[in-house]
Each structure stands twice: as structure tokens, then as C-alpha cells.
């Protein structure tokens, strides 16, 4: 495990007027550069735990270390400027422009104006929003997904080593959520921030986490491990129940489309002539051709019947391509898209939407088989290890 960026030692929180503590004696280390997910049933204290890291909730007892420094009693406002904070409702300031929103912490830190301007533009680019178009808008003019992007940009503004994210994608529609999750993972692969991420959704935890802490009541850690180990070797009945019965389906959330060899599919460009395309299609033995536009982006599925029909342009016939995934998508996402597609495959595109290959049921089956075997092997070696621990005493 890399050096701990955040260390919580024996943290306890009692709220006034409540008999039971909300968090009792929690000790947890978050390694630098990793996403650690706090997941658990509602009311388990996961949000309280996270809010103690930037001291929005002051711990009753225990200590908090950030980069090795005890920050339990330092100035809370100054501490918070070193920690990015993203919440579900985003909380953009509605009376300030996108620029002013993102510039909040740099201004608190008294950065010079040109540096702030450059940083805001850089961040808007980073989250995929054109600075010249969005800089001067107000939050009300943005969609939910765009607001959350600005929320992430705002949290990153002073380049803090640590980010806290409280169900950041919880209030967003499923399609946008998936896209934001994938974008965020792509960002994180470049930024390597240390992230504490709270969610109640085990699927999101498995997808986003390098490490997952499954919490039960009072923020007691039921298991703190990698997603692979949690799925293949749940520590106890509570974890097993929390994962749910479909562990093998969930394991598909661990594998990314980009990690597998994609299948080539016969493609066609819009200016090709039909008899040649028909011949290609027959030779390929597939049921349909994938029509790409001039930029290489998938447009239509063309079946033999569509190619024989004269008249309408190629881009007007056939079926729309609606099952698209990016390399960061999980196999579970791909499977879901596949089930929506009339052709039975998901088309893989890069960030610009350019076709790179397809993924089909065969890839999923093979991946599931491999994962099942390695999970089995992992739990066997886990068993062997715990046997070895026990045997000297036996």
C-alpha cells in the first residue's frame, strides 16, 4: 500500500442529544492517489465520517492526519482550501458566473488574476466544457450533468491533493451518470488525486473504487479491501448481503471494455457503392455492415435488404446505432448496451466518437469465465492463508 495520504485514528462522533455515537472508534488509512469508497446502508455514518475529514463535522475524539500532519485542530477554513469538496446537490453559487464559481478557492488563496483566469480555462477544458462558451454563464443555464462537471472543476481549482465526494453522481439520470463516472475515471487516471468517495450504491463502489470500505452501523468497517477481493471473498454475512446475490454479474463492473481485445466488424463509408458493399457483407458472413461517417463515427447498421434498396442515401436507410460504449465503460455497461442493440453487439468508440471496434457476448462470456477462475483462486489462497495462521495454534 502506498503512503497514507489521509489517516483517521480512533475517530468518534457523538451528536448532542443522541445516546449512540454516529461514528465509533473508526481507524482508516487512505493511500495516496487512490479512490477509496465509503459504502454502506443509509444512516451508517459514512457521510459523517467523510465530513470529519474536512471538519465540517468536528470529531468528538480521535485524530485526523493529512499528508502526515495532524490537522485535528488546525484552522478549519485553511484546511478546507487544501481539500476539494463535491456534494450531490453540487451547490454552485447561482448568483456567480461559472468563472467566479470555479475561481472561489484560488481567490481565497489570493492567486494573481492572470493565474486564476488560466486555471479556470484549463479546468473547464479538463471537464470537457468549452471555456469561451461557458465561462460567463450562470449555473441556471447549465444541465444537471454540466453543473456536476463544474462542481468537480471547482473542487479541483486550487489543485488540492485530496478530494471528498459525497454521492457526486447520485442526483443525475442514469445515462449521464454513467458518462460522468467514466469521464471522472479518465480524469483520475491523469490526476491521481487521493479521493474519498461516499455512495450507497455498491455497483458504483465496485466501478469507481480502488479500495472499498463497507461500513455497518456506527461506521464500523465490515471489510476494507479491493473490489475484487470484496466480491470474491466477502468477510462476513453482512458484506455478502450488501453485495447482493449477483456477485458474478457485479464482477462485470470490474472489467473495462478497453482491457479486452475488440472484434473487428465490417464497416462501410458513406460514399461507397452498394454492390461492392453487398459483396463485402456477404464475404464477411455477418448480418449487417456498420456505416461510418467521414470522421469515422458510427452512423447506421446496414442489412442486405437496405443495400439492395435504391434511392435513399446510405445514411438514411438501415437502423440507427444506439449501443455505443467508450473504453472506460465496464463490461456491465457494455452488456447492458448490447441488450438494447438490435444487432447484439456494442460498438466501441473513443472519446471523439470514432469507431474502434465492437464487443459481443463472446467477449463477455470469456471475461466472466476468467474472473470466476481468478476469484476462485483468490479465495482459495485466502483460505490457505487463514488456515496457515490458525494451524500453529491447532
Amino acid at each position: 500500500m502506498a503512503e497514507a495520504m489521509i489517516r483517521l485514528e480512533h475517530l468518534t462522533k457523538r451528536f448532542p442529544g443522541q445516546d449512540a455515537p454516529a461514528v465509533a472508534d473508526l481507524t482508516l488509512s487512505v493511500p495516496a492517489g487512490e479512490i477509496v469508497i465509503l459504502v454502506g446502508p443509509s444512516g451508517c455514518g459514512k457521510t459523517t465520517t467523510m465530513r470529519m475529514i474536512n471538519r465540517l463535522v468536528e470529531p468528538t475524539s480521535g485524530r485526523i492526519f493529512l499528508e502526515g500532519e495532524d490537522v485535528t485542530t488546525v484552522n478549519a477554513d485553511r484546511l478546507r482550501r487544501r481539500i476539494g469538496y463535491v456534494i450531490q446537490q453540487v451547490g454552485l453559487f447561482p448568483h456567480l458566473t461559472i468563472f467566479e464559481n470555479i475561481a472561489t478557492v484560488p481567490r481565497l488563496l489570493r492567486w494573481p488574476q492572470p493565474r486564476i483566469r488560466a486555471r479556470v480555462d484549463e479546468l473547464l477544458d479538463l471537464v470537457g466544457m468549452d471555456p469561451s462558451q461557458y465561462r460567463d454563464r450562470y449555473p441556471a443555464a447549465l444541465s444537471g450533468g454540466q453543473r456536476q462537471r463544474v462542481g468537480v472543476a471547482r473542487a479541483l481549482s486550487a489543485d488540492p491533493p485530496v478530494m471528498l465526494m459525497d454521492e457526486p453522481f447520485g442526483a443525475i439520470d442514469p445515462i449521464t451518470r454513467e458518462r460522468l463516472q467514466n469521464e471522472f475515471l479518465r480524469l483520475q487516471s491523469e490526476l491521481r488525486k487521493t479521493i474519498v468517495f461516499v455512495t450507497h450504491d455498491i455497483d458504483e463502489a465496485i466501478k469507481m473504487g480502488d479500495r472499498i470500505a463497507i461500513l455497518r452501523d456506527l461506521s464500523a468497517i465490515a471489510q476494507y479491501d479491493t473490489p475484487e477481493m470484496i466480491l470474491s471473498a466477502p468477510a462476513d454475512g453482512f458484506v455478502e448481503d450488501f453485495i447482493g446475490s449477483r456477485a458474478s454479474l457485479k464482477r462485470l463492473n470490474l472489467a473495462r471494455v478497453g482491457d479486452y481485445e475488440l472484434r473487428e466488424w465490417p464497416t462501410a463509408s458513406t460514399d461507397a457503392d452498394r454492390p461492392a458493399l453487398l459483396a463485402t457483407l456477404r464475404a464477411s458472413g455477418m448480418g449487417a455492415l456498420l456505416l461510418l461517417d467521414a470522421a469515422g463515427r458510427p452512423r447506421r447498421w446496414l442489412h442486405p435488404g437496405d443495400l439492395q434498396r435504391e434511392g435513399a442515401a446510405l445514411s438514411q436507410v438501415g437502423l440507427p446505432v444506439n449501443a455505443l460504449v467508450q473504453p472506460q465503460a465496464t463490461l456491465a455497461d457494455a452488456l447492458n448496451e448490447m441488450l438494447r442493440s438490435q444487432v447484439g453487439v456494442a460498438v466501441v468508440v473513443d472519446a471523439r466518437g470514432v469507431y474502434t471496434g465492437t464487443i459481443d457476448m463472446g467477449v463477455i462470456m470469456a471475461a466472466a469465465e476468467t474472473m470466476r477462475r481468478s476469484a476462485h483462486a483468490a479465495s482459495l489462497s485466502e483460505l490457505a492463508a487463514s488456515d496457515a495462521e490458525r494451524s500453529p495454534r491447532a
Partner: protein
Amino acid sequence: MGLWTYLSRNWADVLLLARDHAVVVLVSVTLGAVVALSLGVATYRRPRARSVVLGVTGTMLTIPSLALYGLLVSLGLGLGWPPVVVALVLYSLLPITRNTITGLLGVDPAITESAQGMGMGRWRRLVRIELPLAWPVILAGIRIATAILVGIAALGAIVNGPGLGDLIFNGLRRLASPAGLPLALTGTVGVAVVGLLLDAVLLGLARLTAPRGVQGGVHG
């Protein structure tokens, strides 16, 4: 003497009285706003203090104005401007304080939480985030207070206060003579006109100062 004859002979005096009327209201509502904003800011996060402040300022509004003027004079404030300004300030407190509290409590908690989470201190959060977002509601309270004060200021003539109330009281005293009615009418209509003008000014101010980017805006 008819109304028009009266007006054509005395319009300069009437305008001076109307100006005084507007000034005494504006001065009082400004002082009242300062006090009420402080009260609202000091109490909005404490339910008990909040209800005490609203209770006390609410009681203020139930005291009949003639009684309050009399009381203030007997407390040694003398005649003329001082008792009128003090009374008007007291009457302005409830609407402005209540709207300040309502406005501040109406700010989305997610917004204040994210401000706090980014390291904005208590005071900065209040000045940069909460008050600007609550401002349209606060200003609406100021408009209500102004409308109330314009009427109450007219009664200030009873303690020799400034403004158009003078015409009304003089007119009512002389209703038997032909000079009475034009005086009373001029005073009454003048008060209404001053009220409308001040409201128009405040509405313009609301439009000018409404936080940009916030939907819902200001309604006339």
C-alpha cells in the same frame, strides 16, 4: 376656494411638504433597515432568539401610532422630526427583520455547505453568498415597510412632524369652512402619490440590484 385654486396658489408649499414626507420615510426606513438587518443576521440561525425578535418587533407594529407618538413625546423626544423618525424606525423593524430571516433561511443549504466546504469563513459566506441571495426577499421587506411608513408618517403631524400630514390635519379641523376640503384632499392624495413614487424607486432598485443568474427575479 376650490381644490384647483388652492393648488395653483400653494403648489410650492405642497411640494416642500411632499419632499419632507418622502425624506422622513426614507431616513427612517434606512435606519430601520440597518437595525433590522443586524437583528436578522444575528438571530436567523437560532430558533429561540429568532422568535423573540419577531415577537417583539411584531408587538411594536400593534401599538396604535397616535399612542406611540404621544408616548415618545412624553419620553422627552420633543416635537417635530425626532419622535416621528423613532416611531417610523420601530414600525419598519418587523417587515424588514422578518424578510431578512426568511431570505437567509431560504438559501439552499447545499450552497452554504459547499461554501463552507471550500473554506469560506462565516463572515465571508454571509457577505458573499447568503446576503446577496437573500437580497431580493430583504428588499421586498423594505418595500412593505416603506408603504406602511408613508401612511404612518402622515399621522406624525400630530406631534408637529414633517410632511403632508400637516395639510390633512389642518383640513380636517376646518372642514366646516370652504378651505378645509382642498387641504385634506391635497394631503391625502399627496400621501398616496409619495407612496407610489417611493415604491417605484424601490422597485427600480430591486431590478438593478437583483443577483444576476438567479431565476424568479423581482416582481412588481
